[in-house]
């Protein structure tokens, strides 16, 4: 037994605002084993991890109950980490138990080189190591995580590395002290799938060689089924089910687990065969050699020295009433392309035709009446709604500007109908955005886009910030809306499962260019371009067999 958590309970906050974040959680972890905590946001999985490290705020720690017994190498008997004195915890933290976090940029100190940062943790836990020996161990750790040219990279600052490389550095820092237990809190969530694949492989490999225990926290069932030996499903602070990975995924016992697994896009009821969208339907949106370049200016006169080619010659057509998915890794220019079509970012060259009008040829005044036909829904439901305006104001102001509805009463009535359409209660009209959950806000965002009865909507990663069950509801809502109103959608995403469920056709984007475009079924199952093949292969699927 390496770690045994028994009846752990954590209360956050005080008085009437207190929340029972973790409520009677028990599990155990052996050496060389991977235990995955899965759950939606707010289910208490991160708090569980933090309380093992005792990294919670002081008053929350005082309110902890239960026991966390840990037995590392060189420890005669198991110790209860909740009772251990702070000095003891400092030895264990980093030395015997290491942790890596979701966001590798903010977990590294930007003013020190990565070599110095790893060296510092090493010195802290192994003060007896000589200078040369410590350096050698840092190099070995960096080599272990397969960072290219570790001798050179040691002297790099965090901003000089890519996201995946930074996460490798974090792992190197964690394993440099050869811990018995590694806690990984959503370590690949901020990374692209191809990078994620490498990191997961690396962690699995390291674990096999060092025999450390791995407590892995994630919300992604695809990742879980790849890496976990056993999993625990958390809901509202409770561990509702735990067991062998294969068993839990194949035959979930608890209703909540079943609900979660059914909500995965690959398990949602197929709507295929698709309603026939006549492939010869005239295209609603036609892009021709669209270019969006951002100048890089330097010096006193701000001369243009180079350009970032965010979108570099994209031509495609979206037939009326169809859903085109645009997939690609971060930085490939898919969001810029979506915004360029709406002229939220000014394209530098090319054509964007909506029906017969070239949007790029219009001046601002002529563009404004066109805007009602093209709308956008954003990724982050937090920042996409004006926090100072009531939902009624958010929905009715665009209507008033475009002359929809005769008077205020009629517009309010329309807004109420829209809310009902996106399955929100009518009294939501008079509330403010902060009173809603993420999924509800995303529904308001959809209602806002629908307020102008547009023909074309750009959906920019609209489900990425949402939990799977909420994502499933939003996707079903979109499909229903498409059917009722004949909407045409450009669906930007990095989630292949969602693409497979939703899209008629799929375009794959890389470095500003479309590398492959075809029927979704063909692109996903028989990709032609080598990049698409790599991308699809890297996607962690539930039940790999």
């Amino acid at each position, binding site marked *: 037994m390496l770690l045994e958590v028994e009846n752990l309970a954590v209360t956050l906050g005080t008085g009437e605002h207190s929340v029972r974040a973790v409520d009677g959680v028990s599990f155990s972890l052996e050496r060389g084993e991977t235990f995955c905590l899965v759950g939606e946001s707010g289910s208490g999985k991160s708090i569980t991890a933090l309380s093992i490290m005792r990294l919670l705020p002081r008053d929350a720690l005082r309110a902890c109950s239960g026991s966390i017994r840990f037995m590392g190498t060189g420890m005669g008997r198991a110790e209860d980490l909740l009772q251990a004195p702070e000095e003891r915890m400092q030895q264990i933290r980093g030395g015997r138990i290491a942790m890596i976090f979701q966001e590798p940029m903010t977990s590294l100190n930007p003013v020190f080189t990565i070599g110095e940062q790893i060296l510092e943790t090493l010195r802290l836990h192994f003060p007896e190591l000589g200078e040369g020996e410590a350096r050698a161990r840092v190099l070995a750790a960096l080599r272990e995580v397969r960072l290219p040219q570790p001798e050179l990279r040691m002297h790099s600052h965090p901003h000089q590395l890519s996201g995946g490389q930074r996460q490798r550095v974090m792992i190197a820092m964690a394993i440099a002290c050869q811990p018995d237990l590694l806690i990984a809190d959503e370590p690949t969530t901020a990374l692209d799938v191809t990078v994620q694949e490498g990191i997961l492989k690396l962690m699995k490999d390291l674990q096999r060689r060092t025999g450390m225990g791995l407590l892995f926290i994630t919300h992604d069932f695809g990742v879980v089924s790849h890496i976990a030996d056993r999993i625990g499903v958390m809901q509202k602070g409770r561990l509702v089910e735990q067991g062998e990975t294969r068993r839990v995924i194949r035959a979930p016992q608890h209703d909540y687990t079943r609900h979660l697994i059914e909500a995965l896009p690959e398990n949602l009821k197929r709507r295929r065969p698709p309603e026939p969208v006549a492939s010869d339907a005239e295209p609603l949106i036609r892009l021709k050699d669209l270019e969006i370049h951002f100048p890089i200016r330097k010096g006193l006169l701000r001369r243009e020295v180079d350009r970032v080619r965010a979108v570099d010659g994209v031509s495609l057509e979206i037939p009326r009433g169809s859903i085109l998915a645009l997939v690609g890794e971060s930085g490939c220019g898919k969001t810029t392309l979506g915004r360029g079509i709406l002229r939220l970012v000014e394209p530098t060259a090319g054509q964007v035709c909506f029906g017969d009008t070239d949007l790029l040829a219009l001046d601002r005044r002529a563009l404004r009446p066109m805007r009602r036909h093209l709308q*956008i829904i954003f990724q982050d439901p937090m920042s996409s709604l004006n926090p100072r305006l009531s939902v009624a104001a958010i929905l009715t*102001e665009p209507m008033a*500007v475009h002359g929809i509805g005769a008077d205020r009463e009629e517009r309010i009535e329309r807004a109420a109908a829209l809310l009902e359409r996106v399955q929100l209660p009518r009294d939501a009209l008079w509330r403010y955005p902060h009173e809603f959950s993420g999924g509800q806000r995303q529904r308001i*965002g959809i209602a806002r886009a629908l307020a102008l009865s547009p023909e074309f909507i750009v959906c920019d990663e609209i489900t990425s910030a949402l939990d799977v069950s909420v994502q499933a509801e939003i996707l079903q809502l979109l499909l229903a809306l498409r059917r009722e109103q004949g909407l045409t959608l450009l669906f930007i995403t990095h989630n292949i499962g969602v693409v497979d469920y939703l899209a008629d056709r799929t375009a794959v984007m890389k470095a500003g260019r479309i590398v492959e475009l075809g029927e979704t079924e063909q692109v996903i199952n028989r990709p032609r371009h080598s990049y698409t093949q790599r991308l699809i292969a890297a996607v962690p699927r539930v039940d790999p067999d």
Partner: protein
Amino acid sequence: MTERRQGYWARVMAATFRRWGARLGLAWVAVLAFAGVFAPFLASSFPLLVLEDGEWSSPVLRYLTPADVVLPVAALAALVLWRLRRIPSQRRLLIFALLTSMTALLAWRFVEPPRIVVYEQYRQAAEAGRYQRVIWAPIPYSPQDYLRDRGDTGMQPPLSDPRDRHWFGTEENGADVLSRMIHASRIALAIGFIATGIALALGIVIGGLMGYFSGVADILGMRLVEIFEAVPTLFLLLTFVAFFGRSLYLMMVIIGITSWPGYARYVRAEFLRLRQQDFVQAAVAAGLPLPSILFRHMLPNGVGPVLVAASFGVAAAILAEATLSFLGLGLVGEPSWGEMLNQAVQSSSFNWWMAAFPGGAIFLTVFAYNLIGEALRDAIDPYLGKAA
């Protein structure tokens, strides 16, 4: 639940005034505002009511200036409209503006105080026993009543003259200090609010345009900001006073147009951040007109830090006026706290009451605005994270 329906500002205000510091600050500002608005009824040499030959009359009303009439009417209107919650706030604002401007128009047209004022006439008449009943103001001395009927009085410490009760003593010409302080609070408040208002308006418009359009507008705007930041306010004030004479309005304008760059910087930074926010992009995508995007969607989300700076700005403007008056370049005849401070050290002896009371008032006022600004900043901070 009422709390759920509260808007953002209602929540910020509730969080601000939950703190004792802010409450005390607000209480002091309210006292000042009350004193300023009702000054002629609080401190005046003219009785509020007299009964002469069986007839009641009110001499104080005869000597009111137009400003003396407009301020109480506006204050009462504001109070009544504030309590009337059923009317939407925009309409309330409109009613208030209409009412105030109408009163102002009428007051300046019809209210005309006598040119020659003899302050001691009622006091002497009352002492001669001509009135059956007299109701005096709480402080029965006007700020410019130099007590000529009492002979050569000059500076007197508090409560030293058995005939006249001067709570805070008298100044060099023999006028009552408390009365002058009450009337001076009007100037202190006006200069603080109007000068800061001018600075805010300029700063928000220029900073907003800089932030929204960036590029060339930003470069030009920043140069303008740097130019104005380099102008020393006090010396500009001294120069203008020397050339154009002493005028309260000139002072407000000069303090206003030299202190906007700070606000412009804040607004610019906020707008640069907000421009990238999705809800602003959504507003653009919905084809909303530019004024709506700037002032309805961006400004309310970026105005928080500016308001905090403004509450410190009010304090700074009050200090600037006090400094100028202390240097002897303030208004002539009109009472002002700084001018009274000046008298504390002017004569050969140190007159403690001339230093303690006006100095204390300046200190408390600046302190009050700082307390409010501090609490406002703390209240806005957590909400920025939660709501935005």
